[in-house]
């Protein structure tokens, strides 16, 4: 019996050889057939010549997390050949370039080898040396299409979209595609015992990476100043902003930019610029990853204490230090929540899909201005740099940006005894003014040193304590403004709960389905923000045992939960994956079942 729409294909390539676009062509064609698909790049921290992999999971049920066990491996990299052959599941397939023979000693009895003379074919069929090289990739896509029953029509359509305006290029591409298909047709049985079948499961969903979505979200959220310093995996977030802004934010009359992007000299400068711009009333953000976040600590403390809004996107990668710069992790949480010396706490938003990247990035600016404090958008490499299937973006045209408490000239004129750091409304949030607003009212001195309600320098103990306690109150207000968690049940029905967040979502939802199908009662909650709102506390209170799923070594979110909600640590059980690859459902099910079997 053949398996439909449920398998994993992995491509082993050399980076910098143009395989990326062929591989995503493969993934997208399945998506176009209405079948849920997810794809992950596993790439080295270098530019050219090292092994890189691309892993595609096809899942009828819509499970978009990573899954162990490779059903089919496409190998076009001799460097990693041995390892690649070893990684195929027993009974699986190994597609390779048979122009050169495989070493005898690499062969395995328990998998199927499908040799295609990619180089021979291309050498024979193409004359241009670059084409000879590039089209090897398209040939194997054609072969796979045949083997997996993927629609050639869909692929051709994708190719014509891709080369719109350069139609001449479509023809040789299609030719290469068919060369691959034909070779399979002539030499092998097809399709395989697992394959693709057209469905209507994708609906109106889109395929995009989180960084692209977040960049677009920032455009929609009204960001007009972006300052940044290049670092993987955050670079493409800014590129996305810039790309969309260049299209959508030109002044119609002059053609000039209704935004500015400045590549700064380092991360200290990047956050400094973002703070300066926000201080002056523009919505500004910066984006970085771990090492950059470390460098931004001092400035984050300044923004916290002098109450300046700023949005910072941290696309997390594997730490510590340079760590594994092209691997994913959720390990900057603790530093982000408590960044900078002294007593500080910051607001975090934690998206789990590109759709949420779009939404939360836009919302981050409202939140930062409402609260007059840094808001850290905490995503990760997996979400940021891999394309994910997700619901389409929506925007309510009646939505007005919430600029928070900013006094304009008339309000200042009317204001009685205004003070920059007065808690007028009892919510811990004072009123601010922008430079240049009023000739004689509203000017104040912003400083990171201790100040009183009128922003005057002060070394008075009582004043200091008053302001510091108001900042605590402000964080209480933040709890009512940040997005509430998502729940996976109408009412809690179990003594066991599981908490997850960010990209663990994909695997966690799959795990939940499997465990529930296995008869395990378990409630689930997906966190979206820090500080934690009441519902988070309630969920934990309502359960005897709560598993906390996260992608770091030290269970950082668990620490935040325990510390902020005064939870007994015994209650929160770690479920951790921190090896740099996205977590799988298996890794979540295992410890939970093990512990629950024990306790039954």
């Amino acid at each position, binding site marked *: 019996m053949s398996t439909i729409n449920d398998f994993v294909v992995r491509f082993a390539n050399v980076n910098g050889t143009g395989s990326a676009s062929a591989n995503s062509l493969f993934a997208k064609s399945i998506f*176009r057939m209405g079948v849920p698909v997810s794809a992950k790049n596993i790439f080295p921290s270098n530019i050219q010549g090292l092994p890189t992999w691309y892993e595609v999971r096809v899942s009828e049920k819509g499970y978009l997390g990573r899954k162990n066990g490779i059903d089919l491996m496409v190998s076009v990299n001799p460097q990693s050949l041995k390892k690649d052959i070893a990684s195929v599941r027993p009974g699986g397939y190994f597609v390779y370039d048979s122009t050169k023979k495989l070493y005898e000693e690499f062969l395995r009895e328990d998998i199927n080898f499908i040799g295609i003379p990619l180089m021979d074919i291309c050498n024979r069929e193409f004359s241009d040396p670059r084409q000879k090289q590039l089209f090897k990739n398209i040939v194997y896509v054609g072969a796979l299409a045949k083997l997996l029953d993927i629609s050639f029509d869909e692929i051709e359509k994708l190719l014509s979209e891709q080369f719109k305006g350069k139609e001449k290029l479509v023809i040789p591409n299609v030719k290469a595609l068919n060369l691959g298909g034909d070779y399979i047709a002539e030499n092998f049985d097809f399709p395989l015992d697992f394959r693709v079948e057209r469905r209507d499961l994708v609906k*109106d*969903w889109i*395929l*995009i990476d989180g960084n692209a979505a977040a960049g677009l979200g920032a*455009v929609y959220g*009204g960001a*007009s*100043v972006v*300052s940044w310093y290049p670092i993987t995996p955050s670079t493409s977030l800014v590129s996305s902003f810039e790309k*969309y802004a260049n299209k*959508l*934010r030109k*002044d119609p009359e*002059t053609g*000039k*930019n*209704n*935004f*500015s*992007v*400045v590549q*700064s*000299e380092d991360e*200290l*400068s990047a*956050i*400094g*610029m973002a*703070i*300066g*711009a*926000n*201080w*002056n*009333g*523009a*919505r*500004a953000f910066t984006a970085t990853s771990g090492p950059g976040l470390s460098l931004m600590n001092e*400035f984050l403390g300044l923004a916290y204490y002098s109450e300046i809004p700023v949005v910072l996107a941290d696309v997390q990668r594997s730490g510590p230090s340079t760590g594994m710069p092209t691997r994913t992790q959720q390990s900057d949480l603790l530093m982000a929540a408590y960044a900078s010396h002294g007593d500080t706490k910051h607001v975090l938003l934690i998206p789990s899909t590109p759709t949420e990247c779009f939404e939360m990035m836009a919302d981050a600016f409202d939140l930062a201005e409402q609260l007059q404090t840094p808001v850290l958008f905490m995503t990760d490499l997996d979400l940021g740099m891999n394309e994910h299937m997700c619901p*389409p973006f*929506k*925007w*309510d*045209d009646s939505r007005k*940006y919430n600029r928070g408490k900013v006094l304009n000239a008339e309000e200042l004129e009317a204001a009685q005894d205004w003070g920059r750091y007065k808690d007028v409304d009892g919510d811990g949030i004072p009123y601010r*003014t*922008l*430079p*240049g*607003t009023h*000739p*004689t009212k509203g*000017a*104040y*001195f*912003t*400083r*990171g*040193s201790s100040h009183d309600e009128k922003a005057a320098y002060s070394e008075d103990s009582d004043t200091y304590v008053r302001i510091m306690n108001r900042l605590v109150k402000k964080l209480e207000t933040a709890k009512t403004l940040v997005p509430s968690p998502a729940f996976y049940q109408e009412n809690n029905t179990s003594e066991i709960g599981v908490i997850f967040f960010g990209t663990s979502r994909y695997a966690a939802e799959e795990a939940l389905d499997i465990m529930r199908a296995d008869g395990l009662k378990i409630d689930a909650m997906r966190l979206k923000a820090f500080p934690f709102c009441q519902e988070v506390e309630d969920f934990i209170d309502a359960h005897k045992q709560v598993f906390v799923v996260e992608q770091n070594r030290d269970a950082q979110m668990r620490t935040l939960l325990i510390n902020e909600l005064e939870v007994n640590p015994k209650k929160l059980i770690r479920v951790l994956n921190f090896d740099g690859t996205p977590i799988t459902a298996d890794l979540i099910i295992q410890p939970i079942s093990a512990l629950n079997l024990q306790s039954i």
Partner: protein
Amino acid sequence: MSYIKPKFEHPRAPKNTLGYTRKEYEGSLSTLCAGCGHDSISAAIVDACFELSIEPHRVAKLSGIGCSSKTPAYFLNNSHGFNSVHGRMPSVATGANLANRDLVYLGVSGDGDSASIGFGQFAHVIRRNLNMTYIVMNNGCYGLTKGQDSATADHGSVSKAGSVNNFEGIDMCAIAIELGATFVAQSFSGDKNQLIPLIKAALSHSGFSLINVVSPCVTFNNNPGSTKSYDYVREHNEALSSLDFVPVKEEITTEYDEIDVKMVEMHDGTFIKLNKLHQGFDPQDKLSIINALQVARQKDEILTGLLYLDTESIELNDLIGTVNKPLNSLTEKELCPGSEVLEKINAGLR
């Protein structure tokens, strides 16, 4: 602490063209040491802004950390001030300027703030030609942390405790010129007549204007042997020119065809009149000033006055093609592309 300024102002105190008196450009009481050079610079800033008839609330004054960086509290009380973190004022000023290119940006920093911890930001704000006036109150030491040598302490300068500085001092002006600064001047806190017109000219320049002002620290670096003491600077000060700032509308009555006078027209139509200009030196000729600075260094002279001016300067916002309208005044309409566009984007992602 300086002595309390008289609260009383004469009803007929002179007013500038906006109708403001000098008082309206003052700040809070200084808490610096009596005699600190920085206080004189603050006073010069007040005078320059008053005389230029700048609207005080249209100035944003920014600084880092240090005695010098405290001074924005001591001038222009009706301006928004930002006392940021040590050495990082340039980035904050850059962000602020990107958000609203219409204000006047006045940055104040110290030599520790700009030449040590902040040297990277100092260099890069110059490269970007940010439209701001940047005043370094240069005393060759870290006043606020009690007088350690800074990176501008000259080679051979002797500290109060008697130790000799063995490291090369950074010449802020020479570095700025090398990095492409478009307005570079040097002055002395004790020379109000030179400093005030320089500040006025700097504020009128479109692009980055550096004024490095030697500003003695009376408490920690005013001893004999120090090359940043009042006495030393007075003795070694070599003015390249004296100058006047000539507002655009002012009638030009004097005769300018004298050999040692040069009129430089600024970007906004104002003029700088350079009197008694040194021979062989032209502030619009980079090579001439680079040479002059090198030679002066060998002779232990401190060249003051306008050193370099590029009147073709293009400031950051124009370099990167930003609209003229301040970005912080853009509305939803200009910022948000709306749902229709978004639907198209969605379509492209299927």
